[in-house]
């Protein structure tokens, strides 16, 4: 447990608080000292830990794959190239299976999403106290902060900002391609002429608002469900890890039991993190495919 004097509730709250940079109540800019301050910063604040880990992991992915890509040969592949090619082939097959438009950007985007989200989710498997404790020590001895006020969430996908951010990007791309392929008229038609349509002009006019409402809900539901699915799964998993970690403060017997629980949950979680990364990727491909479908194909 982080700090012997915390109650269980404080421990959990501490773990669920991001390191937030924004305007403090006294008007200066800095890291929030508690959840209250972070909340009061409003929209003009940044979760430093989320940005740090997501950029670090994304950078690691790009660095690793770029390294392999630069030396990629069509001869006998070495170990790492073998692995990367396996991933690339897997993504390529998935994209070819679900995406029927012609866009060279979809496959690289799917690869980026899959590996990036997987790496981000993978941070969940690192014991919940390790990195926050390191951050607390660094905060205390390097920046002279109160270690109890150093908040550090290491799994960006347990921060809705991260998952919403990615889903928003996917949403923007799908809107962009929808407009590009179907034109404004086609896109508006898609929103207003389905699912109810009639050959009678007056009846059709009556259907337009109903269709628009239904289709708008469906449209907005896509990025929302995309991000909330990932966020919800990862947040719940993280929460269970935190609850298990609480047991280590409950004596030897409970601690050992907690150790086994953590092992079991971590092994199960390997499946979840991979599955969530895969689902995020597949749904992205499907949304792009929908953006490329013209109305006649409905």
């Amino acid at each position, binding site marked *: 447990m982080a700090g012997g004097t915390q109650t269980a509730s404080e421990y959990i709250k501490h773990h*669920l608080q*991001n390191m*937030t940079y*924004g305007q403090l109540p006294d008007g200066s800019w800095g890291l929030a000292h508690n959840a209250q301050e*972070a*909340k009061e*910063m*409003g*929209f*003009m*604040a*940044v*979760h430093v830990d*989320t*940005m740090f880990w*997501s*950029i670090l992991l*994304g950078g690691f*992915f*790009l660095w690793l*794959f*770029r390294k*392999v*890509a*630069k030396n*990629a*040969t*069509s*001869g006998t*592949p070495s170990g790492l190239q073998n692995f*990367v*090619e396996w991933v*690339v*082939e897997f993504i*390529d097959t998935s994209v070819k299976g679900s995406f029927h438009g012609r866009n*060279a*950007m979809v*496959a*690289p*985007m799917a*690869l*980026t999403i899959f590996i*990036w989200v997987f790496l981000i989710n993978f941070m969940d498997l690192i014991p919940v106290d390790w990195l926050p404790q390191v951050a607390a020590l660094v905060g205390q001895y390097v920046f002279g902060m109160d270690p109890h006020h150093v908040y550090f969430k290491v799994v*960006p996908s347990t*921060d*809705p*900002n*991260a998952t*919403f*951010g*990615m889903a*928003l*990007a996917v949403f*923007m791309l799908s809107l962009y391609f929808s407009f590009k392929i179907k034109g404004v008229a086609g896109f508006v038609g898609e929103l207003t002429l389905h699912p109810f349509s009639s050959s009678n002009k007056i009846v059709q006019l009556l259907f337009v608002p109903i269709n628009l409402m239904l289709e708008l809900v469906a449209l907005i539901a896509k990025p929302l469900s995309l991000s909330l699915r990932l966020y919800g799964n990862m947040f719940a998993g993280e929460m269970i890890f935190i609850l298990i970690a609480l047991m280590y403060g409950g004596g030897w017997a409970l601690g050992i039991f907690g150790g086994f629980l953590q092992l079991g949950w971590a092994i199960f979680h390997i499946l979840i993190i991979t599955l969530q990364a895969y689902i995020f990727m597949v749904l992205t491909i499907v949304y792009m495919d929908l953006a490329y479908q013209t109305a006649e194909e409905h």
Partner: protein
Amino acid sequence: MNINLTLIGQTITFFLFVWFCYKFVWPPLINALAERKKIISEGLAAAERGKHEQALAEKRSTKVLREAKGQASEIIGRAEKRASEIVEEAKNDAKLEGERLLITARGEIDQEVNRAKDQLRQQVVALAVAGAEQILKREIDAEVHNQVIDELVTQL
């Protein structure tokens, strides 16, 4: 759990990562894969071609072998025929030569006989002359004469 600028930051980061992947990571990898696919299919095709060519070569070689065997047996046949011809010729030559030798030998024998006859004749003449001389020396004695003549006759 607050929604804030992190959202925008994540979106921008996402676009940057996707762009980088699209520009620098994906193409070389997918090209390498496509190229390897091509190399492998070419290799397989070459192997297939090689197999086919080998089968053709085998067929060709058996044909050449069969022809060579035929030629060889023909040559052997001709050689045997020629050999028997040579033997036949040699036999004929030998026969002719033998006959020729026989004829010359006969001629020589005839010559020898004639020469012997000549000598004999000369000796008879000499003996006759010698007999006459003795007869003349002892005068004439009928008994003796007869005896001498008988002797002469036996000597002839």
